C-alpha cells in the first residue's frame, strides 16, 4: 500500500516556474493556410470574406485578409516533433490527468506573411482537496509574438492532476 502524498507539487515544477521556453518559430503564414482553416471551421457554409477575399478585407478596419482568431500557425511542423511521453494514467495518486480548460487573449491579428514566435512557461499552480482527492491545478502561459515583435496572443492552459 503506497503512502498518501501530502503534495503533488514536484521539485521540477518549482525549478521550472516562470522559466520561459526557447522560442519556436512558425513558417510564414500563407493566404492559403488561412483560407483552408476558414473553410474547415465553417464547413459546410462558405467562410466569411474577411478570411479569403482581399478586396473585401481591404474595406474593413483590418485593411486586408486576416486569419480567424483560433487559427494555429504551428500546425504541420517539419521535422515532426516526437510524441510527448505520456505517464501511465490511473496507476496511483497523482497519475490521473484532465484538461482544465483554457483562456485566450487576442491582442493582434495574424496576417498572410506573418511569422509567429511562441514561448511557454509554467506560471502558477494551486493545490486543494476536491471530490477527486488532493488535486493540483497548474497553469501554463503561452505567448505569441510576430516578426515585428508585437504581442499577438496570450493563452493560459490549466491542467488538472490528482
Amino acid at each position: 500500500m503506497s503512502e498518501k502524498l501530502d503534495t503533488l507539487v514536484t521539485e521540477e515544477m518549482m525549478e521550472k516556474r516562470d522559466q520561459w521556453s526557447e522560442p519556436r518559430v512558425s513558417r510564414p503564414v500563407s493566404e492559403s493556410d488561412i483560407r483552408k482553416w476558414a473553410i474547415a471551421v465553417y464547413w459546410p457554409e462558405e467562410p466569411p470574406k474577411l478570411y479569403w477575399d482581399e478586396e473585401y478585407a481591404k474595406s474593413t478596419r483590418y485593411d486586408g485578409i486576416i486569419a480567424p482568431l483560433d487559427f494555429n500557425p504551428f500546425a504541420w511542423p517539419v521535422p515532426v516533433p516526437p510524441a510527448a511521453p505520456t505517464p501511465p494514467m490511473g496507476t496511483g495518486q497523482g497519475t490521473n490527468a484532465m484538461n482544465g480548460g483554457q483562456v485566450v487573449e487576442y491582442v493582434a491579428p495574424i496576417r498572410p506573411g506573418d511569422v509567429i514566435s511562441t514561448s511557454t512557461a509554467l506560471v502558477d499552480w494551486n493545490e486543494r482537496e476536491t471530490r477527486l482527492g488532493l488535486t493540483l491545478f497548474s497553469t501554463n502561459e503561452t505567448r505569441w509574438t510576430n516578426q515585428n515583435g508585437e504581442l499577438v496572443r496570450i493563452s493560459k492552459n490549466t491542467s488538472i492532476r490528482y
Partner: protein
Amino acid sequence: MANNVYWEDIEVGYEIPKWTRKTDFMHWNRYAAVNDEFVYIHMDDEAGRAGANEQGAFGMGNLRFAYLHNMLRDWAGDEAWVKTVGLQYRAINQKNDILDCVGTVVAKRVENGEHLVDLEINVVNQNGQGTAPGQATVVLPTRA
C-alpha cells in the same frame, strides 16, 4: 454574413444569435487536416471505445473552440474584436450531436477607451447539455 453591432445597442441579458453545427467525420477530418490533429480517438470508432467512449470516435475539443469563435464573429461583425475567450470541456462531442453555440451578454463596460461586452458562452447539445461552458469579452464599435 458580417453585421455591424454597436455597443450602445446591446443590453445586458441579450442572447446573441445561435451558431449550430451537426458534426461527424466530415467536420472532424477537415479540422484535423488544417490543425494537423490526427488522433485515433477522433478518427476511429474502435479507438474511441478503447478511449472509454462507448459510442466510438468523438470530436476534438479544439473544433468547439473554433465554433464558439465563429458564433462571436458572425454576431459582432468585422469591425469588432474578440478580446478573450475562455472555456472548459465538460462533455464529449458525439457523432451527429447537434451543437448549438450560445452566448448571453452579462455585462457592458468601458475600459482603456474600449467598449466591451462580457458574455457567458457554451456549446449545448441536443440533450440540453452544456458541453463547453465559458466566457468571452468582445470589443464593439461605438456610435460615439
